[in-house]
Structure formats: C-alpha cells, structure tokens
C-alpha cells in the first residue's frame, strides 16, 4: 500500500489504540493530551512517509514516535510531568526511558476500558456517540459533522462538553466491578447500537462514510465478544443484528445514491458472508435465559435475510415485533410491526391497527399508510404519500416519495 492509502487505514486502527493506552497511562482527565499526541504522531507519519517512503514496520514506527512525543511532552510541561511522571518515565542506566506499555494485552484492555469510560451513564447519549466516533473510531470533526448533518462548531462543542463531563464525573479507565458489569455493558451496547444506526439510517449523503461508521460499530462490538468478561449473549445478539443489517448495504442504495426499499431490493446483492456471520453470532447469543431487545431484533434481522416472501416469514417477524414492543416501545418498531401485519395477514387489518398509532407527525407513518392503501384505495394512497412528502426532511426520503407519487399519477 502507498502511504496515502496506508495512513488513513492505520489511522482507523491505530489512533484509538495509541489514544487509549496514553489515556490509561496519564489518566482519563488528560484525554486531550493523549489525543493530541496520537494526532501529532500521524501528522509526522504523513510528512515523513511521503518523503522517505513507508517504513518496514509502520505500526512499530508509529508506536516509537508516539513514545518519543510523550517524552517530549513531559519535558516541555513540567506540571504535567510531576503528575504522571512516575507512571511513564523510569530512570535506567541508559538514561531516561519512556515506558509506555504497548503490549497487545494492554492495548486491548485499554480500548475496552475506554469503551466503558465513554459509555458512562453519566454522559448524555449524544456525547457518548460523539466521543465514540472521535476517540474509538478515529473520525475527525469534519467527518462527524457530516455524519450527523451538523456543523463543526456543534460537534466541537459537544466533544468539549463531553470531555468536561468525564472529568467532572471523575470517570476512570477501568473494568466495571463484577456486580456492575451487566448494567454498564447495557449502556455500552446501547451506544454501539445507536452508533451503527447513525451510519445505517443517517440522512448523510456520503455513503462510504456511513458504511465506515457501521463497520467501526461492528468492530467495537466484535471486540467485546472476544473478551471473556464481556462475551455475553446480548453482545453476540447485537453483533448478529448488525451483520444481518449490514448484509444489505450494497442492495439498499442504487447507483444514484438513492434508497432502495427492502421489497424492491435485488437480493443477489445481499452479502452471504455477512449473513452467515450473523447466524454464527445469533447461535452464540442463544444461550442462557436472557432475551434482550437485541435478541429480538436479531431474530427479526434473521428473517429479513430469508429471500422467499411467504406469510410464514412475516408471521415470525410480526411475533418478534410484538415481543419487542411489549419489551420496549418505539415508533419505528410500531410502524414495522404494522407493515409485518399487512404481509402476514392483510392490508385491511394493518390499516385498522395503523389508525390507532397516533404517529401523524412522522412522515414514515404516512408513507406506510400510503403503502397499505395501494390497491385498496389509490386516491387515499396518493393523499398519504403527499402528506408524507410535506413532512419528509431528507433528500433520499423525498426522492423516494416523489417517485411513488409520480407512479400513481402515471397510472391515472
């Protein structure tokens, strides 16, 4: 790989490792310093490698530079040195050495601890997601702003406040106590789930970036399955669910970047490898008695990977949506349940249920109602799609609805 391709790749994989190890060493209250040193390391890499070529072992090179930059930093900042010196610098016969523990065990532990720290329940959820994107996934301010469809200033402020909150709450980089692990892990899973959804459903135009967000969320979840302390059924269920969703990544956007709805997708584009990975993790999730929302969503995801469009398939999906809603209400689940009801039973039954939903402010509600009325009362369907269009915000949603309205006019 040439350095211009290699550096972004290494940035994704190594930035979080260097940041996590340094934050662990300095203490999480100094996370900015850790991030600065990690960023500087990559800046130097892009300067040097462009001129001198890529070193034989780029990762080792990055770690050495990070180590030297840490030592430089300690030399410059006396006050900081007093605080953290004992943990970093040791005097040896050969002079002063920086002892950064960059063993793979410490790298893994530090990353996991960073995950728990960032997903601390004291932090507002959007701060958690922002920090996760920035610190754990190595996304820059520009990328995060583009993923969230917001300005750089907003993201900068959000990250600043999030780091302040970490300090105020004195969040430490450590594994939660055994008694707390279940509830802390739940918070981590929620953030990873939302992180994945941010990539999967966001209205952002940059498809590659959105896919990267999903891949990073999956990578972090996979890391939890690889650690005995966190390899629990809901974690595996979440990863299964992500695999099933991600299997449709290629099929759900056309060459013009427009959204392709599930029923219109070319199922030969569904990724069989990801589907079988999903099945593997769903099996691993199916131990013990705990039935989390991720189990139910993974089961729904699994049935969506079945190509044959049978009432049996939709009956399964309907029953899992029933369970999911009984466990925890969400408007999207309510709409999806109604769609499944139409497929498993009849459109008329689904219309009756849809009318009770009280979700008139959401454009998706009117899109769904329009779908249900198609073939029963096309005039009413047209009305629904128009209402949906007046409420839809994203370009992709508007394109989809304009297409539907256009086709209905075409038939007249």
């Amino acid at each position, binding site marked *: 790989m040439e350095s211009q391709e290699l550096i972004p790749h290494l940035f994704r994989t190594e930035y979080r490792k260097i940041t996590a190890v340094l934050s662990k060493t300095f203490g999480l209250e100094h996370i900015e310093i850790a991030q600065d040193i990690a960023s500087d390391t990559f800046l130097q890499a892009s300067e040097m490698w462009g001129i001198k070529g890529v070193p034989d072992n780029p990762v080792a090179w990055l770690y050495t530079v990070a180590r030297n930059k840490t030592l430089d930093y300690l030399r410059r900042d006396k006050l900081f040195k007093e605080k953290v010196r004992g943990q970093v610098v040791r005097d040896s016969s050969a002079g002063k050495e920086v002892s950064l523990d960059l063993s793979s065990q410490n790298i893994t532990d530090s990353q996991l601890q960073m995950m728990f720290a960032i997903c601390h329940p004291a932090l507002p959820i959007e701060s958690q997601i922002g920090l996760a994107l920035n610190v754990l996934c190595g996304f820059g301010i520009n990328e995060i702003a583009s993923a969230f469809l917001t300005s750089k200033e907003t993201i900068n402020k959000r990250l600043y406040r999030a780091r302040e909150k970490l300090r105020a709450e004195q969040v430490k980089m450590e594994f939660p106590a055994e008694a707390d692990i279940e509830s802390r892990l739940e918070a981590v899973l929620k953030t990873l789930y939302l992180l994945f959804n941010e990539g999967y459903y966001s209205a952002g135009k940059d498809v590659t970036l959105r896919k990267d967000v999903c891949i990073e969320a999956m990578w972090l979840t996979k890391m939890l399955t690889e650690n005995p302390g966190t390899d629990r059924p809901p974690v595996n269920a979440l990863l299964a669910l992500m695999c099933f969703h991600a299997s449709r990544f290629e099929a759900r956007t056309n060459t013009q970047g427009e959204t392709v709805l599930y029923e219109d997708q070319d199922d030969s584009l569904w990724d069989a490898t990801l589907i079988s990975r999903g099945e593997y993790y769903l099996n691993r999730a199916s131990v013990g008695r705990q039935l989390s929302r991720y189990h139910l969503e993974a089961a729904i995801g699994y049935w969506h990977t079945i190509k044959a469009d049978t009432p049996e398939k939709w009956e399964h999906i*309907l*029953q899992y*949506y*029933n*369970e999911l*809603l*009984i466990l925890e*209400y969400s*408007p999207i*689940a*309510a709409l999806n*349940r*109604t769609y499944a*009801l139409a497929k498993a039973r009849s459109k008329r039954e689904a219309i009756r*249920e849809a009318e*009770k*939903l*009280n979700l008139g402010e959401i454009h998706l509600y009117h899109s769904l109602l329009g779908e249900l009325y198609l073939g029963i009362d096309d005039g009413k369907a047209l009305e629904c799609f128009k209402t949906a269009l007046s409420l839809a915000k994203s370009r992709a949603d508007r394109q989809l609805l304009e297409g539907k309205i256009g086709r209905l006019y075409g038939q007249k």
Partner: protein
Amino acid sequence: MNDFLFVFRNDPSVMADMSPEELQTSMQKWMDWIGGIAAQGKLVDRGNRLANEGNVIRPGKVITDGPYIETKESVGGFIMVRAETLSEASEMAKGCPILLAGGNVEVRPIIRM
C-alpha cells in the same frame, strides 16, 4: 393519561381442554392483541399469567384452597395499560381474545397513592 388494570377472568378448564394447536393459536391472538396495545405506546406493564392453584386467607387466618370456591370463573392474569378515559380503556379491552373463549375483562382505573 391514566393507568388502568385489565383483570382477565375465565373458566380455567377452557385452557386445560385446549389442544397444542389451539393453545398456539390462542397464544398468537394474545400476542397480537397485547402487541397492538404496545404498538400504540399504551402498555404500562405486560403483567403476568396466574397459576390455577392458590390459597385464600380469610379472617381468623383460615386458609382455603383456591380463590374460586363459589364460581367457576377465576382470575387468570392481568396487564396494565394507559388511556385518557375509562371508556377508551374499555374500547381497548374489546379486542381481548378472552372474550372469544367465554371469559371477561374487568377494567379498573388505578388510583396512584
């Protein structure tokens, strides 16, 4: 919004006489009905089913078998829902599959202490 308790009463022998297929169908109807309430965001507590056996403790600490000595009807379970009015809650209860099996639903507003 107010909370309401739905108390389900039926003859316990009705369920005992069901074939596995009938049980399956009945289960599905219940899930559809409760799922429909949950889809409106109006399910407060999914409640539980109650076992047929039980004791009733009466004054003088007399314990008698079973809650249902005078009648064949027994409380089989409960859920809690949210609605504006008693009549809205009662409207929701009309969809309960127990009505198809000869049972009934008692709808009671909950008074928060």
